[in-house]
């Protein structure tokens, strides 16, 4: 039933859209989907922010400063303490004080002098793409500005979150891409050759799918030696993610290849003397593109969540490398959350990123893939 309907849809699309490339077709469908576009905008923004993290961070987020530990976020203001309006937004600096009753450290706003926010200011020096620069989007001339507060060691949380996005987003992206490469090649080989190869791949799929993923991931990441550098751990996590994630795609690609393999165009390739690898890589896999896109967009948010869980538990990315999960390690104790709730901010970025990818994925799925069965979410 679905098969027939899909075929008809496919034929209609081909008739009406002769001369338009696949990308054009997908884009035309995709831009009708407002949620998908919103997701795309969220993702591009997050990626841009984290790529140029030092530029958006007014303070050096690696510099320790015990005097600034756990500063609350400063509010951007237009009205000062006397209720006077200022055209230029400003913040009040925070002065460390001791609570007379509890004797704990508290920060008080110093309302005597507004710190005006200046744009495109010179500040701490950083390196980006090999260039040295001191230019920052915004900053204050004296005092300090921490829009999302500071952490236990007095480091600027905004800068750290933006910088952490680099690792969290790239680990998910790499993991998903390697998953797709591994899954589509193994799936195609399995479907195309059949026999022994097929049996081997299918058994592997079965075994990997019968594990609950998280415990196995925990066990594998716990096995990474503590002495390894952050980069080695990063690469290994990508490998582990993709190694455990490929079966779902392999199964779908296999099914698709099984149905395509006997069709005329593949027979023709073989008749004209095309090699097996040509048939697979030039003709079969491009036909599975929509499945790959779908799995790519499902995998990325899953990997973001998984990375954050593992790093939160201390099994994933290790400091000094920063990821959103690593930043949330600072929020493990309930007293900390109670006293300094802003340490939870990284979570907002995780939710935003996952939400963005889910929206984007939903949109792309409908656009890229009018043929497939509706997905679970």
């Amino acid at each position, binding site marked *: 039933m679905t098969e027939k309907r899909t075929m008809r849809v496919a034929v209609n699309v081909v008739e009406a859209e002769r001369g338009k490339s696949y990308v054009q077709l997908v884009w035309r469908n995709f831009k009708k989907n407002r949620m998908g576009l919103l997701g795309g905008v969220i993702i591009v923004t997050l990626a841009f922010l984290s790529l140029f993290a030092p530029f958006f961070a007014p303070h050096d987020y690696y510099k320790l400063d015990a005097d600034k530990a756990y500063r609350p976020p400063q509010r951007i203001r237009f009205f000062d303490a006397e209720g006077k309006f200022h055209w230029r937004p400003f913040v009040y600096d925070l002065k460390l004080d001791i609570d007379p009753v509890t004797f704990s450290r508290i920060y008080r706003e110093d309302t005597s002098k507004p710190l005006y926010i200046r744009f495109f200011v010179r500040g701490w020096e950083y390196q980006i793409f090999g260039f040295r620069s001191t230019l920052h989007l915004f900053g204050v001339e004296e005092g300090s500005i921490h829009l999302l507060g500071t952490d236990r060691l007095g480091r600027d949380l905004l800068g750290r979150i933006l910088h952490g996005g680099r690792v969290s987003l790239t680990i998910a992206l790499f993991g998903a891409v390697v998953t797709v490469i591994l899954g589509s090649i193994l799936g195609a080989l399995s479907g195309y050759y059949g026999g022994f190869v097929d049996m081997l791949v299918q058994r592997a799929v079965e075994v990997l799918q019968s*594990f*609950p993923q*998280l415990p196995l991931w925990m066990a594998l990441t716990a096995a990474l030696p503590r002495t390894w550098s952050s980069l080695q751990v990063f690469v290994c996590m990508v490998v582990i993610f993709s190694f455990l994630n490929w079966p779902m795609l392999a199964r779908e690609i296999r099914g698709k290849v099984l149905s395509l393999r006997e069709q005329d165009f593949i027979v023709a390739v073989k008749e004209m003397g095309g090699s097996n690898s040509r048939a697979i890589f030039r003709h079969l896999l491009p036909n599975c593109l929509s499945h790959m896109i779908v799995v790519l967009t499902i995998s990325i*948010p899953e990997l973001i969540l998984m990375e954050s869980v593992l790093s939160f538990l201390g099994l994933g990315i290790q400091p000094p490398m920063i990821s959103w999960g690593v930043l949330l390690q600072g929020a493990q104790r309930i007293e900390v959350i109670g006293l300094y709730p802003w340490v939870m901010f990284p979570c907002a970025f995780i*939710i935003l990123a996952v*939400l963005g990818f889910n929206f984007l994925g939903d949109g792309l799925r409908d656009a890229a893939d009018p043929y497939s069965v509706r997905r679970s*979410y």
Partner: protein
Amino acid sequence: MSIPTLFVISVVVFVVIQLPPGDYMTTVQLQLQSLGGLTEAEAAKVAQELRKVYGLDKPLYVQYLVWMKNIITRGDFGFSFQYRKPVADVIWERLGWTILIASLCHLISTLVGIMIGIFSATHQYRIGDYVATFFAFIGLSTPSFFLALVAMYILASRGIQPGGLFSQYYLFAPWSWGKFVDLLKHIWIPVVIVGLAGTARNMRVMRGNLLDILNQPYVLTARSKGLPERTVVFKHAVVNALHPIIMYQGMVLPFMISGEIVASTVLNIPTAGPMFYSALVSQDMYLAGSFLLLVAVFLVAGNLLADILLAWIDPRVRYD
């Protein structure tokens, strides 16, 4: 069919838990050196003796075979170095709680998810649908440890001590009505945290399927016969929209178990989650391995069950 899979699973588990460099005796050796005041040579000797006692000095394949033999013949999963007890004594109760919580989440999220899904599909593009869809997306995008942290914070700020399954008064008391009520008071926290994402998933699946089904010609037929909308939806459409949810059951339980592990590790609820985590960190290999193995076995069994259930509900499904 499942037997070879189980065999490969057991081998994979064993390899995975052997991967970390060193073993539990390395930890013991370091402890003896730092806390016991032994020299390195002495500590190494003690560790070597202990390895001999627990058979850790034998080649890996022998260790594997012994482990497997004991599990199959005697239900003996090895020795937990951390708890200084046989693994079987530690694991069953905790695993039981994990499975109970995961199943509860599963049950509730399926029921609630299906109901919201039906509501959402029958009220497509109305305010209720948008609200449900919005919350479903939020539920899918929020890491469960974050929910656990938030729950912990909210409960603590209201003076309720989070964590644990019982209050202190009932901790060692025999089962009674009071203890049961006390359990309910504690268990709903992890159930809600873990169940949220599952509910969101089920809702999305149900909504999608039901919308597909409601466009089918036979639904149009049912409507044109003049059947009331309630009958059309519940007797004709919902029954057929349920299949993908049942097919998908086998994949939900691992999802729930994963969520449960994270939530109870954060909330420090004495289920298998924190146990597995600390076993991994301290390389208590038999405990970690037995947990992985048992969970995998449960899942294989669960998948089999889902297949049978599907064949029973939908007579068109045939397994050859």
